[in-house]
């Protein structure tokens, strides 16, 4: 029994050592994981600000796309419907807004 106890004690002592080592390893790996997670593509306020700019540009595109209706049912003016502003400029701005959103998502804040 006494021998067994001694053995147990030894095991317990080495166990403490291994436990503390495992704990240290776990802490280090957790720190590494956190560091890895925080290193690339962290989403911060700068990203949100750029996203807001994207939303404003999209809204501007939508405002430019408005209109196109005839002033009266007797009038037919193609230039009102298919104007450069509505068919080229407005969609272009909306697409630029989408691209700004994508840039905001991928922008790194290092």
């Amino acid at each position, binding site marked *: 029994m006494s021998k067994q106890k001694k053995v147990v004690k030894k095991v317990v002592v080495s166990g403490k050592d291994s436990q503390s080592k495992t704990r240290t390893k776990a802490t280090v790996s957790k720190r590494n994981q956190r560091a890895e997670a925080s290193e*690339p*593509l962290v*989403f911060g306020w700068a990203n949100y600000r750029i996203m807001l700019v994207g*939303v404003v540009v*999209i*809204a501007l595109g*939508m*405002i430019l*796309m*408005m*209109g*196109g209706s005839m002033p009266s049912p007797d009038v037919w003016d193609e230039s009102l419907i298919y104007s450069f502003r*509505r*068919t080229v400029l*407005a*969609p272009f701005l*909306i*697409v630029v807004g*989408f691209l700004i*959103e*994508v840039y905001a*998502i*991928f922008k790194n804040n290092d």
Partner: protein
Amino acid sequence: MSDVLRSVILGIIQGLTEFLPVSSSGHLELAKVIMGDTSVAEQSLFLTIMLHVATALSTIFIFRKDVWEIIRGLFNKPYNESQAFAINIIISMIPAALVGFFMEPVIEVLFDRQIALVGTMLIVTAVLLFLADRSKATDKKVGPAAALIIGLSQAIAIMPGISRSGATIATSVMLGVDRYNAARFSFLMVVPLILGKIAYDMISGEFSVASDEVIPVTAGFIAAFFTGALACKWMIALVRKAKLKYFAYYCLAVGLGAIAYAFII
């Protein structure tokens, strides 16, 4: 109801149903029949496009590290995992693109207000979700053959009642793909399709914006983006923990209810 509130609600619904396996199109068909309201599906094409862009952006947002790695890997010389992933995404898009191009109008007519059929499809979704939860966890990744089969399930999911995310994730998991990779592949595979469809719609110039639509569409866009991001994260967690059965119960209940309703009315 104010236009802003209506757009925000539509944005939240789009954000949730894009990721959660409940079939938005199936619910829309049921709502049309039960509420007797033909205007349920009628939202402007522009709002629809904007809400889809918002959920595509929320997918990119959640998987931004993966997407960034894939983009970087595409330009590296030796054939790598990112290039393989991109090729698999392209393979998976083929069946849905073909079905969308040749058969979507036929399917829309066939399923218009056919709630017994929609109910049956919801039960199919429920079965798929049950099977997905029961599949063994593995560490396998999506290969070209699996990508094609997952693509086929996405094409079948064009039918109202079958959830796209549910069908594709269930198929992947049943093929032995690791749960996280299954969810990642399912959500990323649809982004190029959505963006391609949007580019097509933008070029076709078939939409216009009414003067009172700017603020509601913007509000709906923001709501869809944030709801979509939350739903996407939630769905990944549910897939990982094999907790899709709750959605399976829901789809089963709604499916049975729809079939019962079809026979009573």
